[in-house]
């Protein structure tokens, strides 16, 4: 039997429902000064309430008797027509951002020539994909990605637990430091690790030989191990960032209850903590696995010399290293990969469906940390070791290398500041930096807003079309960047000339939003999954509109994840190259293109300077982010 909205309000928060209320009818549930306003609120409340897991509003809203704009807006918020319109608008936006460029690529995979050229439709591209050699290469790619995702996940979870749930000293600083590797351009860390781990003159091998007297070189970065190790430099901090706030937002009483019932720390961790953050864990693992399959720099740098072939280098070769470029083959391979990855994503949805991962409820709680006693120094040492190996070693190389004429040649007579002068005196650099900051700020903000809305509809509602929206938001993540860049180029160039996107900075902005939306949706989905519905219901019962609830309740509670997602998207934009190099126009150069120019021209040292600047930016952004998060959490 459907409960009345009054009964629902009472269930949501009995104490507040009756606070300062006249004991007449519905008035007691709204502390409003006038009856007219009270009446205005009553009907929208009736329509807008019951957004719980069990009850969804299906009835059209009633038109309130007050004809003010506010009332009309409230009605619009709640009606099925408005929801359908909202979903339709979202579908149109996502279709333009993801389906449109992908449809260009689909055309390219089925047509013997790219769009705009005479040719025939055929399946030659797909036939070329389905060879034994390609199957072996695909298995190789999947194997490498799995081999790096699993240990990365273990280390990321451990780090997240240590820094979010224990009393390890200097957690704030360590949290910023352990995530630094993610933000360094991969070319730079590849250069650094190439110097550290090469079998001939690598520093690590030399240290080993000096320490042991052996002439062996146990470390060879140009191997499967080197490829996986380099990929882990990024996947560990990436997954850490996606998981740490799930740990932070968890109500510790659940773990306390397990401990009080006799479970050991390890059992509590395994059967309570890990399961509660399963959405965040699985999202992080899948995002990282997909990124591993699409990783390009690591296999290019460390795999090619060892004869290791993966799908992305094959795609890159087919476009950039063949005469003529093989777009049909490249797009066909990409769609085959996308189909496989989509299956994995659907599998994840199936695993998580129907399970409750609420860790943040309407009942107040105080986030506490677990006291480790003397073990906190062991966890501190672990974090410091991680930082030393993944940050100090490679970034130290960059820092030192930036002050010498040639990267890796440390002679006193080669000390110089010329690289810093060249970078800071370059108008092209500052233009690129300015454009990137503008696009990053706008792009990250818009992407997170879009992702927040998509995630809300997908996770918190049962509106029709939410699965479609979720799938559409995922799609760009599953297409290799090199190919997706071509899709954007074809898509935007072939738009009617009346739509002023191609050749402008808007083309870049839209491409960045498309590329960042899958990440923002996953980050916000994980955050929303943890929030109990009673908090939202309470807000609505007390007269807040949907927008007010979203702003003051949902976003406020999911703010730490929103901030993390924002930083990830922002720095993803800073590093994005594949679409940037095809869509930038004169005057809208971005930092990644400037880096490409410097690198291609042999200016590895100037690239190091820019890489170090990006690290400083990261530290600043993360410091601000953590300060804001701490301030927010302390007010909960």
């Amino acid at each position, binding site marked *: 039997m459907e409960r009345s909205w009054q009964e629902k309000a009472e269930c949501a928060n009995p104490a507040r429902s009756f606070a300062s209320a006249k004991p007449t009818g519905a008035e007691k549930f709204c502390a409003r000064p006038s009856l007219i306003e009270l009446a205005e609120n009553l009907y929208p409340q009736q329509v807008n309430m019951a957004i719980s897991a069990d009850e969804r509003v299906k009835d059209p809203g009633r038109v309130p008797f007050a004809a003010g704009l506010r009332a009309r807006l409230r009605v619009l918020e709640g009606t099925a027509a408005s929801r359908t319109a909202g979903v339709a608008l979202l579908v149109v936006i996502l279709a333009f951002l993801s389906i449109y460029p992908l449809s260009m690529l689909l055309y390219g995979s089925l047509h013997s020539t790219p769009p705009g050229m005479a040719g025939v439709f055929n399946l030659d591209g797909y036939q070329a994909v389905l060879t034994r050699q390609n199957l072996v290469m695909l298995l190789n790619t999947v194997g490498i990605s799995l081999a790096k995702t699993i240990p990365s996940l273990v280390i990321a979870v451990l780090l997240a637990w240590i820094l979010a749930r224990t009393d390890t000293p200097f957690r704030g600083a360590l949290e910023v430091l352990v995530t630094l590797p993610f933000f360094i351009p991969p070319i730079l860390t590849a250069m650094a690790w190439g110097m550290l781990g090469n079998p001939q003159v690598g520093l690590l091998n030399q240290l080993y030989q000096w320490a042991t007297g052996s002439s062996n070189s146990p470390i060879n970065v140009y191997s499967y191990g080197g490829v996986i190790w380099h990929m882990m430099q990024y996947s560990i901090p990436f997954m850490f960032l996606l998981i740490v706030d799930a740990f932070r937002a968890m109500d510790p009483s659940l773990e306390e209850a397990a401990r009080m019932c006799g479970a050991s720390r390890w059992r509590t961790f395994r059967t309570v903590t890990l399961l509660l953050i399963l959405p965040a864990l699985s999202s992080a693992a899948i995002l990282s696995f997909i990124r591993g399959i699409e990783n390009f720099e690591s296999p290019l740098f460390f795999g090619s010399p060892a004869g290791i072939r993966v799908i992305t280098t094959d795609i890159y070769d087919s476009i950039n290293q063949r005469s003529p470029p093989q777009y049909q083959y490249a797009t066909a391979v990409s769609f085959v990969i996308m189909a496989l990855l989509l299956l994995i994503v659907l599998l994840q949805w199936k695993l998580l469906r129907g399970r409750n991962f609420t860790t943040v409820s309407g009942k107040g709680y105080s986030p506490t940390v677990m006291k480790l006693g003397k073990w906190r120094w062991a966890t501190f040492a672990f974090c410091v070791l991680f930082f030393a190996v993944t940050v100090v070693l490679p970034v130290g190389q960059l820092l030192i290398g930036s002050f010498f004429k040639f990267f890796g040649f440390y002679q006193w007579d080669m000390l110089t500041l010329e690289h810093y002068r060249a970078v800071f005196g370059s108008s092209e650099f500052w233009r690129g930096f300015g454009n990137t900051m503008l696009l990053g700020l706008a792009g990250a903000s818009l992407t997170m807003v879009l992702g927040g809305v998509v995630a809300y509809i997908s996770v918190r509602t049962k509106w029709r079309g939410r699965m479609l929206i979720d799938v559409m938001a995922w799609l760009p993540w599953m297409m290799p960047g090199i190919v997706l860049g071509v899709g954007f180029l074809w898509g935007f160039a072939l738009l009617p000339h009346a739509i002023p996107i191609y050749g402008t900075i808007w083309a870049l902005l839209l491409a960045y939003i498309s590329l960042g939306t899958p990440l923002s949706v996953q980050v916000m989905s994980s955050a929303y999954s943890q929030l109990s519905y009673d908090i939202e219901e309470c807000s609505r019962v007390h007269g807040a509109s949907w927008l007010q609830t979203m702003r003051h309740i949902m976003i406020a509670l999911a703010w730490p994840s929103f901030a993390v997602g924002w930083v990830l998207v922002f720095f993803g934009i800073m590093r994005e190259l594949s679409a940037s190099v095809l869509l930038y126009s004169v005057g809208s150069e971005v930092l990644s293109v400037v880096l490409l120019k410097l690198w291609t*021209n042999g200016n590895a040292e100037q690239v190091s300077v820019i890489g170090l600047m990006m690290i400083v930016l990261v530290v600043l952004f993360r410091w601000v982010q953590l300060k804001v998060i701490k301030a927010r959490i302390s007010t909960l």
Partner: protein
Amino acid sequence: MTSGNDQAERRWITRRAALLGLAAGSVVFSAPEAARAEDEWGKLVAAARNEGHVVLYSAFVGLAAHQNLKKDLEAAYGITVDILEARASEVRERIRIEQAAGRFAVDVSENGRTTTTLQIEQDHVFDPHGMLPSAGRLKAEFRADDIRVPVFAIVYGILANTRLVKPDDEPKSWLDLADPRWKGKILSDDFRALGGGGVLFYVLEDHYGRDVLEKLAKQDLKFSREIPANERRIARGEYPLYVPVSLTSVPELKGLPVKFLAPREGLPFIGYDLALLKNAPNPNAARLLMEYCIGQKMQQAYANLGLLPVTADPLSGVDPAVAELGKSKLLGTTDPARMDQLLALARQIYP
């Protein structure tokens, strides 16, 4: 006898008179033509100044001479130059889709010969460039046609670490790379891809056949695509030899213990071409840019960077080491029509 001699002398006089007459006639007739050509060119320059702007898409990412071009053209003619750089296939695809979509944003393309040939044959995106005054000064091996104008060439040699390779052991010939002493000690740009590695493979196959390349395959070459890093790896002593290295590295690596070796057979090269786009928004400025690029000042700028100039103009002020190496014999370049076939062969020999 006398009559025979007289006849021969008369024939010689007649021939000489005819030749002199022809020469005089050509001077008389060509003078107005030269004046007409100069006049036409003057009108083009005036029209270019009016246009005031030109857009170049270049496949040579990070070429320092582009800054010279921008400054000089603006200073000399008041024409602003916008240059967009990307990799060869990216530039090609950008131009192709813009032309197909009717978005005529670019005036001049600067790309490698292989890609420019494909664009001419398959994409049909260029217009004839018309008369360029300096085209007559191009070297014999860099002739222009009515569509494209050669602008510079990249030449390739061998990079050796001077601490690991004694002068007596330096490879003097490309065939010396197959010497067993270098087995496992050669770092190489990928032979299976477009770029220096592909050029070297093509040229060696063209000159010496498949056998040499199969011998090289037994040398356990280490392929690596990251050229700037590769050069530094040789300097650090990871490997004694790197092939092929561009002459442009010589000025960049000054101070490091490395040496550019020019084998006696000559240096493989790849030329870059300029071409005028169809429906170019600034066609006159475009042609002026093309003419400027094959003029002495820009050719000097290219030479300073270690690129091979394409004109026979005498150049001064170039680094002596670079200038000397730049005089090396040229071994050959790729034929775009066969390039894909050779890349497939490379993938076969070096799986």
